[in-house]
């Protein structure tokens, strides 16, 4: 009788031991699964965020072909490069259509919304400076720079490099003396010759230069200074000509802060875990 009791006891102890082991194993399994799941979620988020960043950079590199911004590290000079060898309207609508196709290929939702009208592209900087390029009229293209939030643009100077078939000679029409440094280079790609204008002007006055195009009545006019009540502004306009191929603007700021800004192109990029929905950043 006593031996039966002992055996029963043994059976229960064994059951209890198995149940305890099961419990420990279950807890361990749950912990491993939880750890693995959180590790995996982090990795997933990481790879999707990377993918979104990669796509944004990809789109930015395409847009930079027509209008690019750059600023070397710890530099007070920013460079804006305008490529007139592309029609911006055609480029942007083509980019939009191609990116729609590309989205299907990569499994990422991409929505590229060009400016309206697409012939007017701009970069709005967080310091208030605005760069506008207007190609509404192919023979009267125009570039403007001004401060959208104040009456003066806080800069030290402009270096303007104009590359095209316009003449090399830069004719001062109305120029004042002051502290704003202006350097204009007109490079004729046919003759290989360059004209240079280098002086300090008054940014509160309207200063005008003219570069004639080969045909009579056609020219490139450069305005710097007080334009529509905004000091230190800039305007480059082609009159009845489409002679410029590229314009490179080096703007000297009075600080070395990294400039932030946006193109007037709206971009949506989304994966299942990550998304970007904002104007396209310049960097």
């Amino acid at each position, binding site marked *: 009788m006593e031996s*039966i009791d002992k*055996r*029963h006891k043994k*059976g*229960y102890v*064994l*059951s209890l031991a*198995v*149940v305890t*082991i*099961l419990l420990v*194993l*279950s807890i361990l*399994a749950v912990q491993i*699964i939880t750890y*693995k*799941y959180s590790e*995996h979620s982090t*990795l*997933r988020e*990481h*790879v999707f965020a*990377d*993918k979104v960043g*990669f796509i944004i*950079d*990809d*789109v930015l*590199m*395409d847009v930079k*072909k027509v209008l690019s911004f750059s600023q070397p590290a710890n530099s007070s000079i920013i460079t804006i490069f305008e490529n007139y060898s*592309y029609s911006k309207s055609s480029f942007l609508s*083509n*980019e939009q259509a*191609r*990116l729609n*196709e*590309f989205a299907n*290929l*990569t499994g990422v939702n991409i929505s590229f919304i060009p400016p309206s009208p697409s012939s007017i592209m701009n970069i709005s900087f967080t310091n208030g400076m605005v760069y506008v390029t207007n190609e509404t009229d192919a023979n009267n293209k125009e570039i403007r720079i001004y401060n959208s939030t104040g009456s003066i643009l806080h800069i030290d100077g402009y270096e303007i490099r104009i590359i095209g078939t316009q003449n090399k000679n830069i004719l001062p029409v109305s120029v004042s003396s002051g502290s704003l440094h202006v350097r204009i280079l007109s490079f004729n790609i046919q003759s290989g010759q360059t004209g240079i204008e280098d002086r300090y002007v008054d940014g509160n006055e309207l200063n005008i230069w003219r570069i004639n195009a080969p045909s009579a009545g056609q020219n490139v006019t450069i305005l710097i200074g007080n334009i529509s009540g905004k000091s230190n502004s800039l305007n480059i306009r082609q009159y009845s000509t489409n002679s410029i191929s590229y314009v490179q603007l080096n703007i000297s700021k009075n600080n070395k802060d990294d400039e932030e800004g946006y193109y007037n192109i709206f971009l949506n990029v989304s994966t299942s875990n990550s998304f970007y929905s904002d104007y396209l950043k310049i960097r």
Partner: protein
Amino acid sequence: MRSKINRIKAKGFISILDAIFGLMALLLFSTIIFSYFQNLPSLYDIFIYKQGYDVLTVLEYTNFSNPTLVFQQSSNNICMRLEIYNGVAGTLLSTYYKSGCDPSNINEKIAWRTFIDGNQFKTAKLAIWRK
């Protein structure tokens, strides 16, 4: 008395049987769960994709001018194949292989990038895998 003892014996037996079934169920679930995690992207996949994105970014920053040189400067244990297409995966224009690698691999991962060449919209497909 004997029937009582038999009932207790049966109870003990059933408890052990329950425990065994429980253990089997646990093993089964563990196997299912672990095999599920095994099939999800691993650290290795993440690393490969990151490498692919980096290589494509460098290629675009160098205007896809010399893919072979970029391949040479990449990690030794990584293999790559680059295909350049006109438009979005349209006509295949050219293919580049990293030297010392097979032309393809069953575990290769794919990354795509767009770029502008002159006035042409092109796409680059990079297949990347570990040696």
